[in-house]
């Protein structure tokens, strides 16, 4: 199907842009043919700074539905993950810092980085019209509970929670970067790799590196001394994987 569509794209575009019946423009209500009315419009900047994009809307061949699907669920899961990370850190900080004041700068640094990631994914979702996960309020509550719970269990438990979450998240981002690099290779071969995908890959790599940095901080701060270490980390990692799977679909 796709090759047929591509070769007759001009026909489809013409059919799309020129409906064969009068269209009433709300701003100037009179019945005139749509095509004529186009010329008298004041052109302006569409929302979300997409001026350049509107002037030159997508010149490369379309991404396949499975590629768009992948990008859609990838960005949705990433946003959900960063939401959880931000909430875990903000819930962990008060109990932890009360008993161990020297951890305040570290917690602040990790929180700031996660908040930055969250902002990035929020803007990507809004820009590319990806819907957020329906489980947003559930993850909100669960992440707050997880952060608070592990913090009252103690410093080592809080660090073990961070270690578990960051291990899963690091692996998850790594997988996404791998898939996107494969695409980038193929598209580059055809000369179709644009800034959009390149920028996305760059951002994901940087974010993955920062998440792994948090993992290192957690291990340096005695996460392995948590009791019960195996149970805690396996439950949290299992929970993360389940949450990732659910957010991809829902």
């Amino acid at each position, binding site marked *: 199907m796709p090759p047929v569509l591509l070769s007759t794209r001009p*026909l489809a575009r013409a059919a799309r842009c020129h409906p*064969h019946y009068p269209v009433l423009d709300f*701003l100037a209500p009179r019945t005139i043919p749509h095509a004529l009315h186009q010329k008298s419009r004041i052109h302006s900047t569409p929302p979300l700074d997409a001026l350049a994009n509107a002037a030159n809307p997508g010149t490369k061949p379309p991404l396949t539905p499975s590629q768009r699907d992948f990008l859609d669920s990838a960005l949705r899961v990433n946003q959900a993950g960063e939401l959880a990370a931000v909430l875990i850190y903000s819930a962990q900080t008060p109990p932890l810092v009360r008993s161990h004041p020297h951890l305040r700068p570290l917690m602040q640094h990790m929180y700031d980085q996660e908040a930055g990631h969250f902002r990035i994914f929020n803007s990507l979702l809004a820009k590319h019209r990806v819907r957020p996960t329906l489980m947003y309020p559930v993850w909100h509550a669960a992440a707050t509970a997880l952060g608070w719970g592990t913090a009252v269990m103690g410093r080592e438990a809080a660090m073990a929670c961070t270690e578990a979450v960051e291990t899963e998240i690091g692996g998850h981002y790594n997988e996404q970067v791998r898939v996107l690099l494969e695409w980038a290779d193929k598209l580059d071969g055809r000369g179709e790799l644009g800034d959009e995908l390149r920028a996305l890959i760059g951002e994901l790599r940087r974010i993955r590196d920062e998440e792994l940095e948090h993992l290192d901080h957690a291990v340096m701060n005695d996460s392995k001394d948590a009791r019960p270490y195996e149970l805690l980390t396996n439950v949290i990692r299992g929970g993360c994987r389940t949450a990732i799977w659910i957010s991809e679909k829902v």
Partner: protein
Amino acid sequence: MAPPAQLANCVRGTFRASSFRPTLWRQRCLYHSYEYSQPPPFPPAEAAILSSAISHVPAFGFTLDALKLGARDAGYLDVSTNLLPRGVFDLVNYHLVMQRLALKDSVQFPTEAEQGTGKKIGIGAKVRTLTLARLRANEPVIHRWQEALAIMAQPSYAPPSFAELAKLADEIWFLAGDTSVDTSWYTKRASLSAIYSATEVFMTQDTSKNFAETEQFLDARLEDVRKFGGFLGALGEWADFTGHSAVNVLRSKGLRI
């Protein structure tokens, strides 16, 4: 591997194997690229037939006659309407999709620079403008629209019709400049879908000059949602504040939470 990890892996494998997503859902959730073009909404032959058929709808309604005349105008045989397995619903769907895609070009808002120091148009006002624009796009076929609503209400066509309504609500919020990506993404689109469909039905029996009563109806519905949303927002803020204050007071008393 420790038992909990093995269990997690096994469960994950089961989930992956039985991963089922209805086609409808898949078509809805798609990433919008700015560098890569969007595929055209209809295959070329169907687009040609449907675009000609639409021009016959004011005279013949959303019927097979309109489709056959459209096929003839486009240079196809009458029997080519068999290309459209859903018959007249495909015609209704074509109208819905094309009018939704036309919104981007038919409504333009002035930029910051063009507006100067005048009052900035709020997102609510933009949503109102876009919704009215889409409603007015029904005017050429409004006397046939009850027929279209009946076609859309059939059990096999209701799910795709709802999907189109949801896409329209998404389009309107996006063009109005909404950038929220939390739970309000869903509540905004749900409320706008309800308002739009109620106003559309009202418009089919509106006989006032230039559909003034439809505009008033829309304004009343938008006002209702604004008030209700405002109340819920205030309630949420209050609950949030009270909860945080309670926890902080207990912490200041020395309770280790």
